[in-house]
């Protein structure tokens, strides 16, 4: 069993390094990720945000504009996930306490 686990890890590491060989150089400002147009000739998301963030929302920080305005649905989902996580914590640990019935807050 232990040998299989080590094998899984080595294969995973090798696969990841093989995949990383195809990535563009780190810090390359003209890689596909940072181009003006994407491969399908539509405006690239990151370049679009950099060009229009200040104009659209009168806010200097582009990360804030993307987080709250362009990708508002995304952030709404994330916040719901956080809220659900807190609720799950609450319910999991509260149930144990009620069963014992020792003390309340």
């Amino acid at each position, binding site marked *: 069993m232990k040998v299989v686990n080590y094998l899984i890890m080595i294969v995973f590491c090798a696969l990841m390094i093989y995949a990383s060989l195809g990535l563009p150089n780190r810090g390359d400002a003209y890689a596909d990720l940072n181009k003006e147009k994407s491969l399908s000739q539509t405006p690239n998301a990151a370049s679009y945000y950099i060009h229009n963030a200040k104009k659209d929302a009168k806010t200097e920080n582009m990360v804030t504009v993307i987080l709250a305005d362009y990708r508002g649905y995304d952030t709404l989902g994330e916040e719901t996930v956080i*809220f659900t996580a807190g609720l799950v914590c609450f319910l999991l640990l509260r149930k144990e306490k009620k069963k014992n019935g020792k003390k309340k807050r």
Partner: protein
Amino acid sequence: MERKKDNPIVSLVSRTVSPFIMLFALYVIFHGHYSPGGGFQGGTMLAAAFILIRLSLGMEISQLQFKSRWATPLGSAGVLIYFGTGLVALLFGGNFLDYGFIPIAEAVAERRSIGILCIEIGVAIAVMAIIVSIYDDLLEGSSDD
């Protein structure tokens, strides 16, 4: 978790430092438009200020500052602020979460800026309340056997 005994240095330093952490957290939230920052970071720092008091002074005293039973309603209030901002935009004829339709300022860009501030505040309240609530719940769950 029980405190072994009172350590004056720990309690004094944490009581002194905690308000400044809160002040800096508010700065991070409200200055998120112009510098690195925003609701998530500021909310986490607010939660850190509350948790510092909880760690150093114990659960009973820190209840005076932030009661554990407030955490879940505050978290849902944060999520509701977010939803409500989107809903107000919907009521004024735009899409959901399209702040350009909320009539609070003249220019559309200005409206978007204020809308972003509203939901950052909602995110900060929700994150703060939920992290404090998770801390409280873990403490109660682990101390109860």
